[in-house]
């Protein structure tokens, strides 16, 4: 049995023993002493003073010292601990997977119960810690925690919707073990062995050294699942009405044959219909369109219900879409179709167009503020001022829509500066008229046209001005012969679209086609500089919001409906917010205001919906450093720990305090008796 001190620094109080020692050693005034100046006349040889410093009243001194030492020791709060608990034979770290996929079939609760059962069986010679695997793996139980505390902390964990990294959890467990005392080191992994977790981090360099790995067996079979993910929304302007185009990926596996889809937006039921999944691919893109007020935030959710489904938490996705903000367009083009399409009669409420007169390009260059997007025909690029204006828009992060309506020698250089090239020699046979045949359906401009509801792009016919090659850009639209007809430049901070044709009647039939106004609106929306802050996050993610400079904002408040969840301080126009664990859409308000300034959606990672498992992951083997001859560390002594409650139950400090006070009482009595006797 040995002793420990709960407050060892209070032993510094023992320094006070110097006080009684000094009191005893100091020179007391002698009552009959006369300091005299003429001592030499009293005797010829006065005796030399011999008064060495010596301790008087040794009993009194001992009592005073004892009292002080006992009181100081009592305040340091000593306690007993058992020496047999001081040897650590094994340090063990449990990794408890608390990602969304682990919630399938109650995996998290089951594994937590296993760990709790093991904790009950483990002896004191095994040091235990536990890591909760979430978006940011964290130490739920430390090596120093009492077993009862560890159990309580594990019971307090709640199932999460987050996606975490197996690799990060194993690294954290290894770091914990690096500072442990056990002769053996072990990591015990309780997770669902999701296949995409093991495979995506298999290339990490090995880092586990002299650590034994125990992994709980994965589920016997892949679990059936039904999930919705990756919601995408786009406002599509059809000229006379505004609709929102919604897509989401529906994933099903494991024999789900039928589901019920619901779609709600702004408290309104948009869709509620069954869907037949039998024989369908595992991933289906759901599409929907409905008319919306462009001036309002759009927020809603889509859900799928069906059976069998091992993981119901991924059956809903949430989405938000900001209201339309009127954009500003500078137009340097003579195409009557383009001028008409961008006129206030057509684009009111969406785009405000300002036509630039070619004769006033010099004044345009002198303007201090630019519009959001510049629409320009290549004919004007023969002018040096126009080329300067295009370069300025792109350098400043704004958008440029260039229509190649004419090819002249001066335009070759201008296009090359923009990252495109025309044939060196004039083409003796100009390109023949061609229909649009292929388009990049994942691109935001063309994504809605994958639905026939907005018209078919394949009906549009164009006559390219010239063949155009992208040196620094990518084609988005192709002719029947595979020639690029519409490109996106990648050379500049600002976005650049280049059409290989003009919008005159001789060059294309597009302006009279149903798809032209939505296409033009989508192009301008995509060219416009946007707020870089995303609107969708994963559960538990951390995001940095950029806030407007005026009016100044001190705090950003995250709200779930009217309930305030968290407040985040704003520093230099930015706030770092932590999103909740529960999927949904949340409002952000500023300071004391209650009117939402913006909304964000929180959706689980689609990877967590892939309930396929690996039985023998290669990563576990590859992460380990093989050193067969490495000597095991000697067992270390663990500073035996007791719970605070157990320490309080021990009365050592109390007896020390009583003894100290007793010594003081005896000292007082002793002094009093001595005075009376004198």
């Amino acid at each position, binding site marked *: 049995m040995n002793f420990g001190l709960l407050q060892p620094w209070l032993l510094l109080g023992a320094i006070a023993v110097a006080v009684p020692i000094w009191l005893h050693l100091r020179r007391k005034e*002698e009552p009959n002493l006369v*300091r*005299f100046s003429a001592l030499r*006349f009293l*005797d010829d040889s006065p*005796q*030399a*003073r011999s008064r060495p410093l010596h301790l008087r009243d040794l009993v009194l001194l001992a009592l005073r010292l004892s009292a002080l030492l006992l009181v100081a020791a009592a305040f340091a709060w000593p306690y007993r601990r058992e020496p047999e608990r001081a040897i650590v034979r094994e340090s063990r770290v449990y990794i408890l997977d608390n990602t969304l996929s682990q919630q399938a079939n109650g995996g998290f609760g089951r594994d937590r119960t296993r760990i709790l059962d093991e904790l009950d069986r483990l002896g004191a010679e095994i040091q235990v810690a536990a890591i909760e695997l979430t978006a940011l793996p964290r130490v739920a139980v430390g090596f120093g925690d009492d077993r009862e505390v560890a159990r309580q902390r594990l019971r307090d964990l709640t199932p999460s919707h987050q996606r975490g990294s197996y690799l990060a959890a194993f690294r954290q467990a290894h770091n914990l073990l690096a500072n442990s005392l056990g002769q053996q080191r072990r990591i015990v992994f309780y997770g669902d062995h999701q296949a995409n977790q093991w495979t995506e981090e298999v290339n990490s360099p090995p880092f586990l050294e002299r650590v034994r790995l125990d992994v709980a067996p994965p589920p016997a079979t892949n679990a059936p699942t039904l999930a919705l993910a990756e919601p995408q929304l786009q406002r599509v302007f059809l000229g006379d009405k505004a609709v929102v185009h919604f897509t989401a990926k529906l994933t099903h596996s494991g024999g789900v044959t039928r589901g019920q889809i619901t779609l709600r937006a702004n408290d309104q039921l948009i869709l509620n219909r069954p869907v037949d999944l039998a024989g369908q691919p595992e991933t289906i893109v759901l599409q929907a369109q409905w008319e919306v007020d462009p001036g309002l935030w759009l927020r809603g959710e889509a859900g799928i219900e069906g059976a069998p489904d091992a993981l119901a938490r991924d059956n809903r996705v949430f989405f938000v879409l900001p209201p339309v903000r009127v954009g500003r367009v500078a137009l340097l083009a003579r195409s009557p179709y383009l001028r008409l399409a961008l006129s206030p009669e057509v684009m009111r409420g969406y785009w405000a167009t300002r036509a630039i007169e070619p004769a006033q390009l010099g004044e345009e260059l002198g303007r201090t503020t630019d519009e959001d997007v510049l629409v320009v025909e290549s004919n004007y690029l023969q002018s040096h001022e126009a080329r300067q204006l295009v370069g300025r828009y792109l350098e400043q992060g704004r958008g440029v829509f260039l229509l190649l309506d004419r090819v002249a020698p001066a335009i070759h250089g201008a296009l090359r500066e923009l990252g495109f090239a025309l044939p060196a020699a004039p083409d003796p046979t100009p390109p023949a008229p061609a229909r649009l045949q292929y388009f990049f359906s994942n691109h935001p401009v063309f994504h809605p046209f994958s639905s026939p509801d907005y018209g078919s792009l394949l009906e549009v016919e164009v006559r390219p001005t010239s063949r155009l090659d992208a040196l620094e850009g990518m084609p988005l639209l192709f002719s029947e012969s595979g020639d690029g007809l519409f490109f996106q430049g990648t050379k500049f901070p600002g976005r650049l679209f280049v059409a290989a044709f003009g919008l005159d009647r001789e060059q294309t039939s597009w302006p009279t086609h149903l798809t032209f106004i939505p296409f033009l609106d989508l192009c301008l929306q995509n060219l416009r500089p946007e707020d870089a802050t995303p609107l969708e996050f994963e559960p538990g993610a951390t995001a940095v919001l950029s806030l407007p400079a005026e009016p100044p904002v001190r705090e950003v408040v995250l709200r779930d409906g009217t309930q305030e969840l968290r407040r985040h301080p704003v520093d230099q126009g930015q706030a770092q917010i932590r999103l909740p664990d529960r999927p949904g859409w949340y409002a952000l308000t500023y300071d004391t205001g209650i009117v939402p300034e913006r909304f964000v959606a929180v959706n689980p990672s689609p990877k967590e919906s892939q309930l396929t498992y690996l039985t023998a992951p290669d990563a576990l083997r590859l992460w380990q450093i093989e050193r067969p001859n490495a000597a095991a560390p000697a067992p270390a002594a663990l500073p035996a720990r007791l719970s605070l409650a157990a320490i309080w139950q021990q009365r050592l400090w109390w007896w020390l305090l009583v003894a100290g006070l007793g010594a003081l009482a005896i000292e007082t009595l002793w002094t009093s008796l001595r005075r009376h006797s004198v």
Partner: protein
Amino acid sequence: MIASPHLTSSVLERFDPRVLAALEGLELKARYVMEGFLAGLHASPFHGFSVEFSDYRDYQPGDDLRHLDWRLFARTDRLHVKRYLQETNVRFYLVCDTSASMAYRGTRAWGTKLEVARILAAALAWFLLRQHDAAGLVAWSGSRAAPHYVRPSQQPAQLGLVLGQLEALRPAGGPCLARLLDQTARLVHRRSVILFFSDLLEPAEDVALGFKQLRFYGHECLIFQVLDRDELEFPFGEAQVFEDLESGLRRAVTPAVAREGYLARFGQFMAHHQELFRSLEMPASVVRTDENPWEALAMFLAQRKRRP
């Protein structure tokens, strides 16, 4: 001019040690002692010590016109120049003993011996500087490697310098009078008047050489021997332990038994010193710390009066 600076008994009673103790600063205390003393004299001793108008002589071309007496010119229609007495050339040194025995203060004393010596020295410095005499200071604190030394001067600021040094004196160390005399002889080159303030509690033979050396150089010495009543009379009653202030030696003494021997040895000691000073023609007076110091000042003035 005064015939003799004697003080009446009524004047002596005006000295109040409590008033002296209540005064702040050495200058006030010095002025209290000296002005009280001067007020009790029958006539002012100032005459003859300072710059004084003497007589007239006829104006000679080249004389400073500032010294013309224009009033006399108006009355007599003749030009006369005022003539003055020369200032005195006497230089005074105040030499103060600061050995640890000077810290003694008896039960009836109004100050320690060093305090009394300091006030006397300050009073005389104030007085001398008012007379336009040059006054300086030599002292030696036991803990210092070099003596306190203030060169004699007639400047008005000299009083502050002397008082400052006197204030800084602290009693410490063993016997130092012989060393102090030696240092004084080294520092004082011109013939001067040296005023000693000490208890002289050192063997006469030890200090005799120093006094003889000063006398040999032609200096005029006045001795103010500051002693306490306890030293002179040894009035202690009960058996006590005595500790020497300078050496720290202790001795258990029964005063009733030791008094007779003490007084005999002390009387012998005083007789040796008186013989020494008489042989060297050095006026000496005993200043008791429980009595009025004006008697000692009267001795000083009487001595100065006898000077040509």
